[in-house]
């Protein structure tokens, strides 16, 4: 890294670009979370189910994130794997109140973890146990239990309970992600 680059990095003029995949079942709150992470003047008010995918950008103190916000609907889930190669981090969103589809979330996660483009990489995974404000929601501990997250041994992962509508829990998760990426790079 040149001196100039370092300098501009410190000044926040040119930040490091990171590609993140945002995955999870439909209606889990992926778009709502990404929207909340954008600067308030860039946020949209009405969020509709994503068709295919959409590309969103937001910045943290030292990184510039490019997020592939994938659609979680069953018929679009086979698109996910085409972006695994480019992804440098994964945000996996779970609707903590959808008890019935927890098995489906687990199934999709297992397919993801066993994909050749993911399996042998130390790619950080951030889980959001979203919609924790709802009455039916289970705790993030219960979510990690239901998804058997303890079996992920070769990748750094972290789970945060979140409420994407109020924006609670999001910052904690993104901070963790930023630390992980910087730990790898330096």
């Amino acid at each position: 890294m040149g001196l100039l680059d370092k300098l501009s990095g410190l000044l926040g003029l040119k930040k490091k670009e990171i590609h993140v995949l945002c995955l999870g079942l439909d209606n889990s709150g992926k778009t709502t979370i990404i929207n909340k992470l954008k600067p308030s003047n860039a946020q949209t008010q009405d969020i509709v189910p994503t068709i295919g995918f959409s590309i969103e950008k937001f910045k943290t103190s030292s990184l510039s994130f490019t997020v592939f916000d994938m659609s979680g609907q069953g018929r679009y889930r086979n698109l996910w794997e085409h972006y695994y190669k480019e992804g440098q981090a994964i945000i996996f969103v779970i609707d903590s109140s959808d008890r019935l589809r927890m098995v489906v979330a687990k199934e999709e996660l297992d397919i993801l973890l066993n994909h050749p483009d993911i399996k042998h990489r130390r790619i950080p995974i951030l889980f959001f146990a979203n919609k924790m404000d709802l009455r039916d929601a289970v705790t993030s501990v219960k979510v990690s239990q239901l998804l058997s997250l303890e079996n992920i041994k070769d990748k750094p992962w972290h789970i945060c309970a979140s409420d994407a509508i109020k924006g609670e829990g999001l910052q904690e998760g993104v901070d963790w992600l930023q630390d992980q990426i910087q730990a790898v790079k330096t």
Partner: protein
Amino acid sequence: MASGSGDSAGGRGESTEVNSKWLDAHYDPMANIHTFSACLALADLHGDGEYKLVVGDLGPNGRQPRLKVLKGPSVLTESPLPALPSAAAAFLMEPHEPRTPALALASGPCVYVYKNLRPYFKFSLPPLPPNPLEQDLWNQAKEDRIDPLTLKEMLEGIREKAEVPLSSQSLRFLHLELGEMEAFVAQHKTQPIRRQTVITTMTILKKNLADEDAVSCLVLGTENRELLVLDPEAFTVLTKMNLPSVPVFLEASGQFDVEFWLTAACRDGNIYILRRDCKRPKYCIELSAQPVGLVRIHKTLVVGSTQDMLHSFTHKGKKLWTVPMPAPILTMSLLEQRSRGLQAVMAGLANGEMRIYRDKALLNIIRTPDAVTSLCFGRYGREDNTLIMTTRGGGLVIKILKRTAVFGEGAGEAGPPPAQALRLNVPRKTRLYVDQTLREREAGTAMHRAFQMDLYLLRLRAARAYVQALESSLNPVSATLREPLKLHAVVQGLGPTFKLTLHLQNTSAVRPAMGLLVSCLYNESLYALPRAFFKVPMLVPGLSYPLETFVECLSDKGISDVIKVLVLREGQSAPLLSAHINMPVSEGLVAA
């Protein structure tokens, strides 16, 4: 034996668990849901994209009927019903927004319609005219001209004979004990008697559009052997059709205003198919047993019967196939996987299996902890391919079909063997073949007779030869009951000296054989036997006695002959049995 096979079945179910096509979303053995497939419906009742499950619950032992609405794994609302439910359905009442479906629940003589889960309308079947004789009796009771006992006797007489059945009031009266009658008459005599039938089955039929979410009419089947089609908004009777028997399962296709078919499986074991503009059934399919389930896939019908069979018919009643089931069928339903265009039949069996068939081919077996009594497949919550099953013990099982799951034919056990699909290379019909066939067709009887006659002659000759052999004791097994014996001879050696061993066995169960003799008859110029006649020791039952003798061949010409061995009884000239021994050629002499 039964438990053994049960264990192995369980083992097989577990071993396939890893690559199962289903995800286990929920299982609650104590869900306390007691119902059958007709009383289950899935619908987006609140218009929020979260599909709910409607259950017309009979309650444990068929008491406490309730309407339950489930969201995910838990009950959202619950309310008591005045009578046992017979069917539940979700349907769109009007074409305007918001297009949230209404819920219809048939129970007793009424259909309760709910919108947004709030009671909206109650439809009652029109009353039927009461039996005039019965009416007359109750009028007399009203004026106290008849005492309760006579009333009971007269009513019983009507019940036995009359065409028009009694009203529920009279039927209840006939159930009462002597002491209760008076009070009942006093209480009910002023009320007019009303006869009402009940709804046995219900389904929905599109009104005038073929769209997935088109406005639909309710179609009711009644105990009075009628089918009624109701207007979706006004709930007036649009049309009425008569059936020869009471419908128990009902399927509808088409559109009411254009052309439609109604298929009713009835209690007389027949399936009637009705069309628009005909008040009577157009086709009739006769099952040899009672129907236990009816599923329509496009233009084919699949019916389950009490003979543990699945039958398939075209919508014109032509039989397509039959598949036997390993256990009685308890319930049936349709599985429709839209994303892959799959339509299949699900059948819950008494042995705890849930089988899925596409046509005759078994696609999948799900083993459940308890026999499944109701089945429903469709969008539930936000998942398209959800399977809901309730069990005999009141349990609730929810499974989700994996996104990656593909039902391959032959994945199951049975189904037609692959060889059945091979085309045989059938040779062309020759002239000779055609002539022969014609001849066979014309002279079939004569040919059969000639064949039969030859067959009888053959049997006769065989029988005669057998009798002759028995009479001359020419066979090595004696058939006389008093002396059951078996003889078996072995010749050993290359020659010129052979060893002849006769194995003699007494085959009777207990009696020893005594005083037997063996004599050998042979050509004396060819053979020499040092012992051609000897006594047999006492034969203990069951043991085989080897009797040995040497045979010397005298000829050096390489010829051989037969030696006859006779087993005789002392003092009798006819042999008990005999054996012909074909002697081998003496090789020793030929070589020398």
